[in-house]
């Protein structure tokens, strides 16, 4: 009893001098619609993942060295030697993955439930900016790993920035910190990742939450009950007055349970799989490199390979810009009407389409069928079916002239061009000769590269590429 009285007195004193307890309690106990259940956990899960990133990021910063010359060895130290370092890196990596995933789920849920409509247009718009900041954090975070992949990712980013009209060259130089990768590069990526973007994220999370409190948590939509800006606020208030429940603790427990489960998953993944491997050192003179972004941008890597070449210069710059502006403008274009996804087939279709598209691009990005296979070995005698003569010589040429880097033959080779395992069933020697000599959009012309004897040998080999059918 005595303890309780002391606590009460202390709390009264803090309330009197700061007003913080009542401020917290007012906000935490704001009324929420009662049937806002498990669908509503993704926003707080995003916030929770961000907090995981802040905690693990600050801890990593105690040992990280943002120096172009030393960053890689600092990372090696954190990864290999520092107690808990590898685990902490893993937490930061899977925390980032969770944050990207939760932002995506939160966005899809808000869109499908029509919660972005009047009066919550700016909740959505600030959310879109937060999505952008999250992706920038993902990219700069991958770059702070400061291995070979990191420096080439910066180059790729700078090359994309350079395509922007007028300001492009400046933007590229800003990213690189000058003309080339060098001493200035890592420090600016570090400043962005650790100060500028997190500062913006904190500010916009504040604004985002302020808006949530101002307009209230949106009620789950009912089909046939459209949003009318004239009456919406009154109806929402009546709903809350009648059936609203205090957010804390009636709704908050689901957020807590989900967030804790998410943290557990992050921990298990970090413990079991650990952080991504470090690549080669960040030495731009090591030419053997195959730069790839982390998974959350791998789909965009595929986009860059698959854009029609002649439209690329427009799409590379205006595509992302237009997509971002459209997302921000969305609630202003459609701020009234039906909220329920049962009455918004196009909304459901676009979410499905975007999901399928990103999944398909993501899969392609992981396979990179457009990249030459630099590891292709000369075809074995069993596959070639000859150990001397023109067929054998042609098979050698097929490897040496780089054909096998892009063409698949019976279990080996690249995926860029058509599979040639059975080419002789499709094309006559003459057709093959024309194709080899003249090339195509995705194939070099070999007319000047092969002697007539070499061409004959190559054709002799290709003519044997026929699957025996009964």
């Amino acid at each position, binding site marked *: 009893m005595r303890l309780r009285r002391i606590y009460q007195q202390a709390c009264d004193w803090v309330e009197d001098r700061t007003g913080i307890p009542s401020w917290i309690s007012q906000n935490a106990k704001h009324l929420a619609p009662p049937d806002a259940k498990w669908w509503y956990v993704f926003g707080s899960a995003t916030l929770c993942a961000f907090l995981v990133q802040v905690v693990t990021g600050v801890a990593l910063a105690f040992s990280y060295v943002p*120096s*172009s*010359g*030393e960053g*890689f060895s600092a990372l090696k130290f954190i990864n290999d030697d520092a107690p808990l370092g590898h685990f902490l890196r893993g937490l930061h990596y899977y925390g980032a993955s969770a944050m990207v995933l939760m932002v995506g789920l939160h966005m899809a849920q808000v869109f499908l439930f029509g919660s972005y409509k009047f009066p919550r247009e700016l909740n959505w718009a600030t959310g879109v900016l937060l999505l952008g900041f999250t992706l920038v954090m993902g990219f700069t975070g991958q770059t702070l790993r400061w291995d070979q992949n990191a*420096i*080439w990712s910066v*180059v*790729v980013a*700078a*090359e*994309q920035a*350079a*395509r922007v009209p007028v300001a*492009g*060259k*400046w933007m590229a*130089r*800003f990213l*690189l910190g*000058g*003309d*080339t*990768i*060098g*001493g*200035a*590069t*890592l420090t600016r990526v570090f400043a962005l990742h650790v100060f500028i973007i997190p500062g913006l994220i904190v500010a916009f999370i504040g604004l985002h939450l302020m808006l949530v409190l101002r307009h209230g948590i949106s009620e789950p939509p009912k089909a046939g009950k459209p949003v009318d800006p004239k009456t919406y606020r009154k109806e929402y208030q009546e709903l809350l007055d009648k059936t609203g429940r205090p957010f804390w603790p009636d709704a908050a427990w689901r957020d807590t349970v989900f967030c804790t489960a998410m943290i557990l998953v992050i921990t298990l993944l970090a413990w079991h799989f650990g952080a991504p491997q470090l690549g080669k*050192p*960040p*030495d*731009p*003179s*090591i*030419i*053997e490199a*195959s*730069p790839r972004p982390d998974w959350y941008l791998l789909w965009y*890597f595929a986009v*860059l*390979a698959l*854009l029609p*070449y002649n439209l*690329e*210069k427009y799409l590379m710059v205006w595509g992302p810009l237009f997509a971002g502006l459209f997302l921000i403008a969305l609630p202003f274009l459609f701020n009234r009407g039906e909220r329920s996804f049962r009455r918004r087939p196009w909304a459901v279709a676009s979410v499905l389409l975007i999901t399928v598209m990103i999944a398909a691009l993501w899969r392609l990005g992981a396979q990179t069928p*457009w*990249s*030459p296979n*630099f590891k292709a070995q000369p075809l074995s005698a069993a596959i070639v079916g000859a150990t001397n003569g023109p067929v054998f010589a042609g098979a050698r040429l097929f490897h*040496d*002239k*780089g054909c096998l*880097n892009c063409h698949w033959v019976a279990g080996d080779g690249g995926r860029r061009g058509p599979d040639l395992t059975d080419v002789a069933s499709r094309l006559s020697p003459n057709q093959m000769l024309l194709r080899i000599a003249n090339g195509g*959009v*995705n*194939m*070099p*012309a070999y007319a000047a*590269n092969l002697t007539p004897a070499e061409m004959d040998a190559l054709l002799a080999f290709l003519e044997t590429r026929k699957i025996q059918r009964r």
Partner: protein
Amino acid sequence: MKDPNTEPCARLRLSSPEEISRRRFLARFNLAVGGVGALIVALPAVGFIIAPFFQRRTEVWRSVGKVDAYKVGETVAVEYEDAAPWPWAGVTAKSAAWLRRESADTFIAFSVNCTHLGCPVRWLAAADLFMCPCHGGVYYKDGTVAAGPPPLPLRRYPVRVQNGEVQIRTGPIPLTKK
């Protein structure tokens, strides 16, 4: 008089002309003085951050070895140091180029950066082709585009022979502006 706090977007309701001019002056004075203070801090900070935009680097010639170390017709990767590396640049101060000895005393130096998005292209000697690992760009041995997305031929760096040494002039990472 209405409480100005209830109408944040409305201008202050002011009663007498003297009050108007005094309040208006104070409001503007306040903004002006505060603005000057903010600018004094912000300008050098922003200037420091964007300084790399305006720095023009003087390029230098870097020796990549004796002429005799290169065989005519062969294309090899060479590495050299950037023009003015910062003291803590470490290995990031290095650059690479594809160097080919064309004849007894002429050389070509290709940038290793693919003109599509800058990834380092590899030379396949037997095939006489450069291939890019990122998005499938391919170049002929003269650097012109053979296949894939690159919009421009591989860039070249100036290269010269002096005192029996091959020298490449450093340069920025070539940016494709289209």
